[in-house]
């Protein structure tokens, strides 16, 4: 019985001087599996987190649809709003990961993960896509609520696959943004405040609630550099068929995620010290 535990893994010593894509992928899978396992043990969180998007859709969406106050180019306002609310609920989940990583630092979990043969970028990527997995579970709930309210989302599998990709990328970017901020502020209390302080501006300075053309000029500028807008545009294009620059949207999201992973992993050492 002692033999397998006594012997180190054969030939394992020299395989990871550089970060290989296979290694990154295996770490991402490991951390996503953990996220799914946690979700399966506590499904109540899916429901409690569904309250806020449900309110946005049922109260705000239904009311503004009746008012016809927002020009959406012939699309019912609820249909226009639903992809924005979906993006928002994914954003709220991802921003929580910065607080979580500080909690993990305080609890010794982060040090334990960082002492495994896992490059920092792979660890951050793993966390980011774990946020994506959770975001995806939430997206399913929001999709169902919207369907129940009569929103006509696409059922085209190719488009839905695109939606999955957008949700994963969006969640991954905002998770990295949040971990980056955590790496700068280093304290849970400050992180909670900042989390709140950036979530709403990101949401309001995006096209989630209203078309860009309605915004004042200064807000339009912010909107142009806000990845949430590209995420919403892609979701809207894929889910309800409004015009979208999908190549640009995906390009921005992929680039933002890559930059986010680089920034967050660069600051991870600060958290571990």
């Amino acid at each position, binding site marked *: *019985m*002692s033999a*397998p*535990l*006594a*012997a*180190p*893994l054969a030939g*394992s*010593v*020299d395989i*990871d*001087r550089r970060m290989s894509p296979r*290694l990154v992928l*295996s*770490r991402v*899978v*490991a951390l996503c*599996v*953990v996220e799914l*396992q*946690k979700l399966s*043990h*506590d499904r109540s969180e899916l429901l409690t987190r569904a309250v806020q998007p449900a309110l946005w859709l049922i109260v705000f969406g239904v009311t503004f649809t009746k008012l016809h106050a927002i020009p959406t180019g012939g699309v019912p306002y609820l249909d226009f709003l639903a992809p924005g609310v979906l993006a928002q609920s994914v954003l709220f989940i991802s921003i929580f990961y910065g607080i979580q990583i500080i909690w993990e630092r*305080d*609890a*010794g*979990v982060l*040090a*334990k*993960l*960082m*002492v*495994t*043969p*896992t*490059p920092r970028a792979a660890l951050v990527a793993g966390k980011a896509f774990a946020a994506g997995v959770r975001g995806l579970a939430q997206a399913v709930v929001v999709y169902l609520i919207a369907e129940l309210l009569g929103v006509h989302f696409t059922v085209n599998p190719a488009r839905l696959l695109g939606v999955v990709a957008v949700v994963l990328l969006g969640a991954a970017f905002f998770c990295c943004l949040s971990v980056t901020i955590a790496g700068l502020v280093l304290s849970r209390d400050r992180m909670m405040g900042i989390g709140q302080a950036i979530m709403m501006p990101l949401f309001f300075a995006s096209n989630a609630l209203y078309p860009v053309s309605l915004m004042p000029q200064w807000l339009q500028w912010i909107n142009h550099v806000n990845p949430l807008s590209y995420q919403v545009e892609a979701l809207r294009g894929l889910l309800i068929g409004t015009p979208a620059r999908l190549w640009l949207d995906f390009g921005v999201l992929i680039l933002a995620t890559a930059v986010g992973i680089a920034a967050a992993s660069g600051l991870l*050492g600060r958290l*571990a*010290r």
Partner: protein
Amino acid sequence: MTEASAVEVRGLRYAFGDTTAVDGVELTVCQGEIFGLLGPNGAGKTTTIRAITALLPVPPGTISVFGLDVARRRMAVRRLIGYVPQQLSADSGLTGVENVSLFARLFDVPRRQRRARVDEALAMMGLTEAAGRLAKTYSGGMIRRLELAQALVSSPRLLILDEPTIGLDPVARASVWERVGAVRAETGMTVLLTTHYMEEAEQSCDRVALMHRGRLGTLGTPRELIDGLGIPGGTLDDVFRAYSGGSLDDDGQKGIRDVRATRRTAGRLG
């Protein structure tokens, strides 16, 4: 030295801002021994451990683990190390099996062996029956043993335990030492641990080093150190007092970061 070394530390210094946490530590941990790093809170034990695990940047040539330079071969060194931090850090939202499986994955245990290795690690820690339960239902002692299972699933050559029994009741403490001793006896694994429970160190460690204010006070087998003191019926506690000036507390070293948030799950002193 007759045995090859597991860990070599040469002239390790580390400062957090103006506070020098470790100031010129030199030590060698031999292969297969249980080595205890003792000292009061803030002595620099955890900082030394964090340097050995490459969590803190150290200059090349300062630390080597099984002949690998920690500064240059960080990932390779980590493959050889199983690490249990001071805090009770198992994930309470996962079952025992899931907690251990995560570490099997992170250490690239081949998929075909994974389940067997996870079960074996849990069995070694006496957690087979509790393996399917969420860790939030575990007692403190069980969580610590679960963490040992997490650290052992990758078959490390060096097991690093930072205050493994802090905050546990006497029965759980005895059980942790018993399991660590059994693993060492079975596998010949090297164990490096920190503690400030002198009695436990005296019973469990082959050799100990006493740290105080970032420096190494003395190093040897518990017997050697006690005999060297020349007090009839003396204990390691007396040695500790002799080297740390009688005080178990921080005496002015409170700024050191390794004490910062780490004692939340545990009593400050046993």
